[in-house]
């Protein structure tokens, strides 16, 4: 026996996937910061990234700007652009993590966060809130609440008919989603076609324009918590992807993990709708792109998805603002952008789906 320290490390140990963590996540953070700087700088009154950085340095107590310009930039950046940028980061990260977690827990790379009906339920909730002439707060609360109710209905159907098996969960989600889609149609039908109906339809296309900084900050607490919780459960999700019996034999409390993951992912989905309406495709495609970058291991995939999703939605929002004079709903942009990206990813990712 040689001394333990003298034993050579086999070359194969050196390039385990963990090596990738050290470089990939900081790169994605850089990408996000750069995108955020561009987003803060662009608008009707364009600012350079240097201007934006100078403002934040001043705000941090390092006076690089004269007071007058500081006040101008404060108004522009903090009051007008920051809420929107913050909302894009939160919603993008939340949708991407929620999608990646759903794909892991359902062992299916084609699953989106709406699998259990959360977005359908939230859409119905928001429309109902508007129909009853609700305040903005009521619309948000109703969207959030109905999103959770829709998933609860799906889980109850799954428990009642199949002891919560995966197939019954999917079926429960389809039934619940269809139910709330039908209820949404009822709301649209009875809504006043001149005022309420257009408002509902436009809202459902998604927008980050009307996000208030207080809303964004408040929502960031549960969102951040759920994202961190899901990232922490990454290694359990890897075991879960192998099958229930195998995961249990590897010491994973399968049922509890599944429900907690579904709970966190649902919370994320419902919060995004209440903040910004329906924004499709992010939860489906971002995890795929992340998987191409960092492999399928969830411990790295989930944080990478969060960072990538945030950058993606910031870029989509930039496009939504820049393409035309009056901005287009961001949900349309993500759909138009998402389909070609998905087709590209499909070519590369198809191999692993046998």
């Amino acid at each position, binding site marked *: 026996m040689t001394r333990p320290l003298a034993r050579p490390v086999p070359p194969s140990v050196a390039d385990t996937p963990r090596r990738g963590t050290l470089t990939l996540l900081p790169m994605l953070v850089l990408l996000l910061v750069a995108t955020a700087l561009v987003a803060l700088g662009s608008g009707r009154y364009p600012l350079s990234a240097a201007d934006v950085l100078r403002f934040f340095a001043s705000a941090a107590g390092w006076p690089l700007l004269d007071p007058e310009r500081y006040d101008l930039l404060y108004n522009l950046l903090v009051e007008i652009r920051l809420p929107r940028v913050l909302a894009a980061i939160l919603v993008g990260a939340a949708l991407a993590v929620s999608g990646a977690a759903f794909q892991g827990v359902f062992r299916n790379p084609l699953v989106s966060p709406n699998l259990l009906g959360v977005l359908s339920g939230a859409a119905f909730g928001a429309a109902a809130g508007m129909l009853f002439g609700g305040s903005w707060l009521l619309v948000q609360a109703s969207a959030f609440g109905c999103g959770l109710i829709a998933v609860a209905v799906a889980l109850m159907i799954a428990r009642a008919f199949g002891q919560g098996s995966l197939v019954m969960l999917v079926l429960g989600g389809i039934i619940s989603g269809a139910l709330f889609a039908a209820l949404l149609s009822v709301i649209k039908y009875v809504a006043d076609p001149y005022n309420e109906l257009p408002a509902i339809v436009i809202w459902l296309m998604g927008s980050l324009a009307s996000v208030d900084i207080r809303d964004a900050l408040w929502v960031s607490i549960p969102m951040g918590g759920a994202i961190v919780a899901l990232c922490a459960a990454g290694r359990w999700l890897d075991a879960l992807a192998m099958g229930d*019996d195998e995961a249990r034999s590897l*010491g994973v409390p399968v049922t509890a993990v599944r429900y907690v993951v579904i709970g966190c992912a649902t919370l994320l989905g419902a919060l995004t709708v209440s903040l910004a309406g329906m924004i499709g495709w992010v939860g489906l495609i971002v995890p795929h792109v992340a998987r191409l970058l960092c492999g399928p291991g969830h411990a790295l995939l989930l944080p990478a998805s969060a960072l990538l999703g945030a950058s993606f939605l910031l870029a989509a929002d930039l496009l939504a603002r820049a393409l035309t004079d009056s901005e287009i709903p961001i949900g349309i942009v993500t759909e138009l952008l998402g389909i070609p990206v998905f087709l590209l990813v499909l070519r590369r990712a198809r*191999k692993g789906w046998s």
Partner: protein
Amino acid sequence: MAAQRGALRASRLLFRRAQRKVLDGVDLTLAPGDILALLGANGAGKTTLLRCLLGLLRPHAGGISLDDVPLATLSRRALARRIAYVPQVHAAPFPYSVREVVGLGRLPHHGPFAAPSEADRAAVEAAIDQLGIGALAKRPYTELSGGERQLTLIARALAQGARLLIMDEPVSGLDFGHQMRLLERLERLAADGYGILKTTHHPDHALACASRVALLHEGRIEADGPPAEVLSPQAIRRLYRVDVEILRSPAGRGAFVPAGVD
């Protein structure tokens, strides 16, 4: 029978499914160093027995103990460090590398929230070396052949650090060469002190590679003992309703040849 260290022991297991007794008073012991082949017709209760032994199903009566400690009192993680499950070859939904799949075997050791330690990684590499799949370590599990996947799953079980391996039809889906090489591999593991319980549909394999054979028939263990004693043409007839003759090679190896079917 004297209590053996590290043995998994089931006594008078009863398991019902919709009033039907799937297991009806099963006694079975798996000790380190054993290769126990479990034979039974389709529907005899083999899978149910396996799942009970792994703690995945709770029997309606009877007890299972590991080293004389009831299985039900052990946590899942503690159990996972003692007993490993090698499932039938399957497809994974995501293209994990072989090293990542084997690395999952360390989950019961480092827990879900900590990154694998140096010791965990060394255990993974040791398991990969032991199965001789170092060349595959970076390949995606989804692109491997059935035999290579089975070796990966066994390596994962070894990485778990468990001394008892429970295998569900380890040779199913493998070609003849891979079947024989796998059986040989199992014998070497048993010689290293691992206890192996495998279900099989091949009486020949039980004859060739097992230290004990148990016959499960209609939820009961009909016979349990050395292969040469248990595997008689009469026993095969009772189990599968097939008449067989046993042929002996000059080297003393046996094989069953069918002589008639009802």
